[in-house]
């Protein structure tokens, strides 16, 4: 292989990216060295097993990925604004919609939610960490390395271009001979390990680590939604793992699981992909539902209406989400019985979702609503998500779907659920729990600017797409003719896209601005919260709770405040905590090396990487470090801020 096959060449945009990546790297290395921060980086962040710090890293990585995916999106919108535009050619366009979709779902939405789960869940259930802190670090680092592996594809070797769904035969060796598709397979495989571990970790954490007295039916609703999400992760991700592995065999080792020849079944890929894929969309929406519930209840200043109905509807969703996957390929033509069955299950799943909408509305009813930024996102979510859900039910009708499928109508549907569901929730949750992460609030004024601009932009961008779809515009086309008559709606959509970009930039500025100028928290309870995370000191000490809280019902901290128990003084006892470890980040680096080797079929490299992985596992197995105790004096020092 020659160097100009290794590096992507010939495109000024890519050269620009090369230069900016190199400059960023040099800048980071320089700053770290100049301020002598290497050791700090290693001990405070790279080796940490603290769920709050891992959560912060997840969220930061997700915001970076949101930027990358957002740039992809704006490039696509730029190309589609006018007919016959020459800004991107078809290959380039294909690569960009592929990386956009993959990054947004796998490397933005999930890590953002998992990051917030990491920060919040142990605090909400009154625990000092997750059940397996070490594993939690492995989760983060495998996700991060998988994401990096996927992301370098556009400067080294070339990006995948077969869509985030990677249907074969298009994604097979004959039609996608470049290494791009291998990046997809291995990046997702490595990141998937992390997600699966997170599912297991949070399942055990929520079942086993709750503060004494907290019954299952008294858990905060975000904790419930994370529990259900974890269950879905544990059962859905193995399917993706296997499907990715089979396609990897097909591409690297000449097997025939999904090929056209030799008895392969191309549609089996689509089948396996969506057996994972539909539960996946619930993985990214359920935590969002949980966050909205917490925020709405806090700022409507009422307990959540219909808590039990909320819980049961999520349990039903966890079951049904595995019974609807065929709605993504009705047009395969599996026959009337199959399509009717999956049509009906799909419509059924809209029922528990609808139940939740009414619960939020009734929680708001007669509440004394405070319009904070977090609350505004939650309020905007309700009508926008309803639009997405109702159009989903339209798509669920198999016969009608032959018209909608693969048009912009579908694109509008899933952006209405994913952006106004997941992305609004990420922003809402970020504003809401920011004080727990960084000990100051995000600026409300800037937050509201982001909110209005982004929400306006979102609706301007995606509402016209429903009509583009009805007018016949197919998805994943890189251009169209003037005679198609799609230009005016496309211009609107691009304007909306630009507004969303501006909203995002204001958010990033807000992070900087608040870091500089926001007053630091003093109480740990900035919003007059209801659940236990607001009972921790400001800043949250690394052991979370000096005393493990006692829970006497739903909205535990609210009850404690009402009974005057919130600020009780009791003698402290030493606290046992897990030690940091460098193994997770090193192990994941080996995964990266091995994955990179496999992408290029450099087997010496992939084997060396795997040996490294194995070695770190052995080292971990013989690690008898049992953690350490925090002394009473140190606890006293930390707790002084809460007076």
């Amino acid at each position, binding site marked *: 292989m020659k160097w100009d096959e290794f590096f992507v060449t010939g495109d000024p945009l890519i050269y620009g990216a090369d230069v900016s990546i190199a400059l960023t790297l040099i800048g980071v290395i320089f700053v770290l060295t100049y301020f002598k921060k290497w050791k700090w980086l290693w001990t405070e962040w790279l080796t940490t097993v603290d769920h709050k710090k891992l959560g912060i890293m997840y969220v930061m990585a997700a915001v970076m990925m949101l930027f990358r995916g957002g740039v992809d999106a704006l490039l696509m919108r730029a190309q589609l604004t006018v007919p016959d535009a020459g800004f991107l050619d078809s290959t380039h366009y294909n690569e960009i919609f592929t990386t956009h979709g993959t990054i947004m779902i796998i490397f933005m939405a999930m890590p953002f939610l998992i990051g917030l789960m990491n920060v919040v869940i142990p605090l909400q259930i009154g625990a*000092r*960490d997750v*059940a*397996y*802190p070490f594993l939690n670090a492995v989760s983060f680092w495998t996700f991060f390395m998988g994401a990096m592996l996927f992301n370098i594809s556009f400067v080294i070797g070339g990006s995948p271009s077969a869509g985030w769904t990677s249907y074969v035969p298009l994604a097979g060796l004959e039609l996608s001979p470049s290494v791009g598709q291998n990046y997809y397979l291995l990046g997702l495989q490595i990141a998937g390990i992390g997600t699966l571990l997170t599912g297991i970790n949070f399942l055990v954490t929520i*079942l086993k680590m709750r503060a004494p007295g907290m019954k299952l039916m008294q858990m905060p609703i975000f904790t419930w939604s994370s529990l259900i999400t974890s*269950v879905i992760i544990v*059962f859905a991700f193995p*399917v993706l793992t296997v499907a990715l592995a089979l396609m990897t065999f097909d591409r690297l080792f000449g097997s025939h699981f999904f090929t056209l020849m030799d*008895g*392969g*079944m191309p*549609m*089996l890929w689509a*089948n*396996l992909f969506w*057996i994972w894929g539909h539960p996946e969309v619930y993985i990214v929406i359920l935590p969002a539902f949980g966050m909205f519930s917490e925020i709405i209840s806090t700022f409507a200043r009422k307990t959540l209406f219909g808590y039990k109905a909320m819980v049961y509807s999520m349990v039903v969703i966890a*079951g049904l989400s*595995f*019974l609807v*996957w*065929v709605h993504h390929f009705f047009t*395969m*033509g*599996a*026959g009337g*019985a*199959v399509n009717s069955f999956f049509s009906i299950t799909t419509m059924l799943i809209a029922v528990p979702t609808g139940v939740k909408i009414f619960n939020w509305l009734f929680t708001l009813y007669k509440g004394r609503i405070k319009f904070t930024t977090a609350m505004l996102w939650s309020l905007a979510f309700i009508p926008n998500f309803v639009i997405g859900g109702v159009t989903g039910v339209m798509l669920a009708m198999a016969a009608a779907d032959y018209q909608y499928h693969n048009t912009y109508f579908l694109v509008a549907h899933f952006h209405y659920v994913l952006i106004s569901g997941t992305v609004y929730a990420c922003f809402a949750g970020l504003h809401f729990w920011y004080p727990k992460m960084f000990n100051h609030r995000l600026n409300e004024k800037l937050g509201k600017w982001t909110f209005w601009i982004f929400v306006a932009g979102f609706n301007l961008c995606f509402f016209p797409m429903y009509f583009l779809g009805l007018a016949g515009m197919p998805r994943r086309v890189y251009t169209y003719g003037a005679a198609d008559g799609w230009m005016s709606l496309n211009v609107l959509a691009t304007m909306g896209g630009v507004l969303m970009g501006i909203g995002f930039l204001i958010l990033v500025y807000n992070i900087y601005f608040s870091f500089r100028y926001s007053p630091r928290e003093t109480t740990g309870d900035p919003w007059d919260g209801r659940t236990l995370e607001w009972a921790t000191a400001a800043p949250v000490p690394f052991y979370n709770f000096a005393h493990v809280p006692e829970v006497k019902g739903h909205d535990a901290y609210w009850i404690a405040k009402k009974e005057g128990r919130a600020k009780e003084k009791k003698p402290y006892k030493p*606290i*046992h*905590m*897990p030690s940091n470890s460098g193994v997770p980040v090193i192990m994941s680096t080996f995964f990266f090396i091995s994955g990179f080797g496999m992408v290029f079929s450099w087997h010496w490299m992939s084997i060396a990487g795997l040996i490294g992985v194995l070695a770190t596992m052995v080292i971990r197995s013989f690690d008898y470090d*049992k*953690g350490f105790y925090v002394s009473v004096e140190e606890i006293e020092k930390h707790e002084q801020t809460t007076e």
Partner: protein
Amino acid sequence: MANNEQTHSHFPWSHVIGFALSIILTLFALWVGFESGLSNTMIVVVVVGLALIQATIQLVMFMHMTESEDSKYQTGTILYALFIAIAVVVGTIWVMSFGMSHM
């Protein structure tokens, strides 16, 4: 984390045996598929049988299915797992056998 401090000092025999058995069963399945010369239906039957045996071994030897006392979560999980497994396998066969030439 903190409260889980009982040490496992004895050698993890059941893990080693389970690991070895899993590898042997996998290799055997491979042999049945490539070398045994059985009819296709027989191959499928044998391989599925081996898969079930291996699943049992893993549940007992790695997942400690028999060692836990709180049986409520246990039964719940097993039932849910069964539900998903059946939905996925039966569903896939049903879906993929319509209108496809390769079956």
